[in-house]
């Protein structure tokens, strides 16, 4: 495989540089779409009564929806400068620190920010990587912890 051009911010940027931001409105509609697309039909993601029964304040977003939305913000940004940007993502991981409550009507805003976390990293294959740190916030609360992607450069 030839080495296509990297997003220049990945190789020339400084650690801490903000690479991209994206805002997404989380609605019940999106939760139901994600349930169908992912085949994760846990009722706490669409039914308030069930959510309250298990001690939640109400319906919450799938953690994997939040991780997926942040991943899309990353790969859409990579794709802007490289048609094989998706294939550059070697690793992507997170912890789910807080659930996001999603109202029955209206929406809650998820804000995703990607920053250059570290350069001169090395993958399992010995090839170079850079680390992009992803931040996801809803209602002023950080919902993903230590969300990191290692990108082939």
């Amino acid at each position, binding site marked *: 495989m030839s080495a296509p051009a990297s997003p220049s911010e990945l190789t020339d940027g400084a650690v801490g540089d903000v690479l991209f931001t994206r805002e997404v409105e989380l609605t019940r509609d999106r939760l139901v779409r994600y349930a169908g697309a992912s085949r994760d039909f846990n009722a706490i993601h669409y039914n308030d009564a069930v959510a309250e029964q298990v001690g939640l304040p109400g319906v919450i977003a799938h953690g994997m929806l939040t991780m997926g939305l942040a991943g899309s913000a990353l790969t859409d940004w990579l794709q802007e400068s490289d048609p094989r940007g998706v294939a550059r993502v070697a690793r992507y991981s997170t912890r*789910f620190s807080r659930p996001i409550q999603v109202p029955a009507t209206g929406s809650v805003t998820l804000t995703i920010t990607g920053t250059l976390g570290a350069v001169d990293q090395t993958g399992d294959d010995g090839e170079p990587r850079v680390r992009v740190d992803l931040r996801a916030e809803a209602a002023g609360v950080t919902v993903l912890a230590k969300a990191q992607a290692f990108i082939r450069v």
Partner: protein
Amino acid sequence: MVGAVDASRVGSVFTGTPPFEVTRRDVVAFADAVGATSSVHRDVDAARAAGYADLVAPVTFAVVVAQEAESEYIADPASGIDFSRVVHADESFAHRRPLVAGESVTTAVHVDAVTTRGPLTLVTTRTELTDAAGDGVATVVSTLAVRGADA
């Protein structure tokens, strides 16, 4: 009661799930749900122009394949996991390459750890995804936190 999860299953491997056939509809519906807007997820010509065999699955799509396979272990009553008391603690993907539409993916779910931390039991599975040629495509590691009955 705490500790209902059967720790003796650590080291077990589950391979009983039929191969996952990735369809174009699967890829587009998932891309819509997670807001992946690049044409490589939606336009076969764009995907092929970028060197892929077909539509490219978004970066977290492998969880769909993994969760279906994990259910062979998680949903088995003998595992002792009460799914109504489960929250997702963490998730990790390692990709050799992206999944693409049209391929058939086989899985092996490894139970890597069952550990107790206060009222929580943490269950870590590692699902290896393999393509039709027998090559590894991705590894999906997932940790579920199961609350004890009093937590």
